[in-house]
């Protein structure tokens, strides 16, 4: 039995690097410090849902084949394709991503990562207006106002609050745990009173105090308190909203208006409406006050902004809001990146080709035009003639019509798990879990690179993404060389 400390969790963009694993007989048997997602992965990775052997679709059915056969078939498809898409890359190492760039260039394909359906709009906006940001360590030690806008870290980045924001003890900012627990107790107390009231066990208080209970979302005293505060802005009451000091519920697709209204308010302009995006203006005034009066504020934002109407315009206005705020106090902004190494895929693609996603090599040099060279658009236009999917599941995450075209053309899937895309695949190659069975590098959401550890051996005969891609690349080059010889002979 060995205990391995400081393991990096290969799941979400928080990339917690304090996980402790107990290993027995080449298996993870215990996980310490991780969240529910982390435990589910480290204890479940060896489960029955793994792809056990390479497979090729023959007569409509996926049948087991040797690794050599699968790799050869994959290389053949790619070498013969005119306009293939190489998509995914967010749940694998930077080392594998780098070979991906080489492969895309070799076959003249389109290289795209999951950012395109995630924080692609954020990247577009950052390219337009820049981004004032910092590392999570800075936020942990200094931020006294934390705003989660259109994101639900409790569900998607479960330890984000505990490690980097409200519930962590920073050098200059205290943990907010205590006041949160008080709040939970207070609500529990209120629930008890309410149910006692319903059962008629206690007498009804006077009408006035009853009215107080009925007030929706009154500005809570915690927003006025000293020390760290959390504000959540979302279209529904998420788990994170439940924990926040203040929750603002916006109508769907109205974030842009609400943010512009806050911009007006922090410039001390009067609004001549009562509500913006379904939110009473007084509530927005509270938020504007809290923003202006903090010492170090941060806005974390998620898909609530990038996937709603306005898309990258929402990020534009968020960054503009920040620019205004920085005239009055100190504010930073950060996208809540989802997959553990989606940031890495943007970094690696940019460093190798100049562009972060949607890189088209079909003309022999990299070209980038989101809306044209991005995978969903190419699929919707029906232009691609083969797809390689690695470390992602577009079969489950792309809209139906895009998946339809992907399923119609030859589809190569490299993944440890049997997911929707693998079920639709024509060549399926199982891979080792990077961060468990293979090592590598990943970038945290704040662009800090961290090492991923290999803690157990992969199952017999299963290679890492990096090795599989290298072999496919070699095979593609061999096929192309043979073709050249034939052409020259003729």
């Amino acid at each position: 039995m060995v205990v391995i400390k400081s393991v990096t969790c290969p799941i979400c963009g928080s990339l917690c690097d304090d996980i402790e694993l107990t290993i027995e007989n080449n298996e993870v048997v215990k996980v310490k410090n991780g969240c529910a997602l982390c435990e589910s992965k480290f204890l479940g990775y060896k489960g029955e849902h793994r792809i056990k052997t390479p497979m090729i679709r023959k007569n409509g059915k996926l049948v087991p084949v040797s690794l050599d056969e699968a790799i050869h078939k994959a290389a053949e498809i790619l070498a013969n394709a005119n306009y293939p898409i190489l998509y995914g890359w967010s749940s694998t190492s930077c080392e594998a991503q780098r070979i991906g760039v080489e492969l895309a260039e070799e076959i003249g394909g389109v290289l795209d990562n999951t950012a395109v359906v995630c924080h692609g709009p954020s990247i577009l906006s950052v390219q337009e207006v820049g981004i004032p940001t910092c590392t999570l360590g800075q936020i942990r030690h200094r931020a006294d106002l934390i705003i989660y806008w259109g994101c639900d870290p409790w569900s998607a980045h479960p330890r984000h609050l505990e490690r980097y924001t409200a519930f962590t003890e920073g050098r200059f900012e205290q943990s907010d745990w205590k006041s949160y627990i008080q709040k939970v107790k207070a609500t529990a107390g209120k629930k008890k009173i309410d149910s006692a009231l319903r059962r008629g066990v206690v007498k009804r208080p006077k009408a006035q105090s009853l009215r107080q209970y009925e007030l929706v979302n009154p500005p809570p005293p915690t927003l006025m308190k000293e020390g760290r505060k959390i504000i959540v802005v979302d279209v529904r009451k998420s788990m994170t909203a439940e924990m926040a000091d203040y929750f603002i519920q916006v109508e769907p697709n109205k974030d842009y208006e609400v943010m512009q209204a806050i911009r007006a308010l922090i410039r001390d302009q009067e609004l001549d409406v009562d509500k913006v995006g379904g939110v009473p203006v007084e509530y927005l005034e509270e938020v504007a006050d809290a923003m202006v009066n903090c010492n170090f504020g941060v806005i974390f934002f998620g898909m609530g902004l990038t996937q709603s109407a306005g898309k990258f315009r929402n990020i534009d206005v968020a960054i503009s809001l920040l620019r205004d705020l920085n005239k009055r106090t100190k504010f930073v902004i950060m996208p809540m990146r989802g997959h553990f190494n989606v940031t890495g895929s943007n970094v690696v693609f940019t460093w190798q080709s100049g562009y972060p996603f949607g890189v088209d090599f079909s003309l022999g040099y990299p070209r980038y035009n989101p809306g044209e060279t991005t995978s969903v658009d190419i699929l919707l236009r029906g232009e691609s003639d083969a797809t390689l999917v690695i470390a992602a599941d577009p079969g489950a995450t792309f809209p139906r019509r895009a998946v339809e075209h992907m399923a119609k053309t030859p589809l190569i899937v490299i993944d440890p798990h049997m997911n929707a895309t693998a079920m639709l695949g024509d060549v399926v190659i199982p891979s080792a879990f990077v961060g468990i069975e293979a090592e590598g590098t990943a970038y945290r959401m704040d662009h800090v690179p961290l090492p991923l550890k290999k803690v157990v051996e992969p199952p017999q005969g299963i290679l890492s993404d990096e090795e599989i891609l290298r072999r496919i690349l070699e095979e593609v080059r061999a096929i192309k060389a043979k073709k050249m010889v034939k052409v020259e002979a003729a």
Partner: protein
Amino acid sequence: MVQQKLRVTLLTGRTIEQGVGKEQGKSSQEYFEACSTVYMDEEDMKKLGIKNNTNVLVSTPHGSVVLKAVKHPRGSMPGIIYIPYGPWANAIVDDSTTSIGMPSFKGTPAEVEPAPDKPILSMEELLKNLYGK
């Protein structure tokens, strides 16, 4: 009065159950249960005359899918339904990328109607149905 159909706005997104199911493996029962669910406002469910865990048919101009309706656990969100990311949600979301590569996963207009007798398709059945593979 009980209504036959309800017009709503569809949002798709993450839930912790979907996250745990995804890490278990996307062919797992956990993933199926997490993603073939639609969260609705309690009052909206009353309008349709349905109880927790009743099957409903959710339709948009882009497709329709049968899901299990579950009461949204926190706060109210009248006129909004929430489906966790997954092949069920993506069978019906708006695919237009407004020329920037990103489909409209949040904010699609939709309709919900009770469908207590219609079955929820498993992932395999759903894929077979949609893509023939």
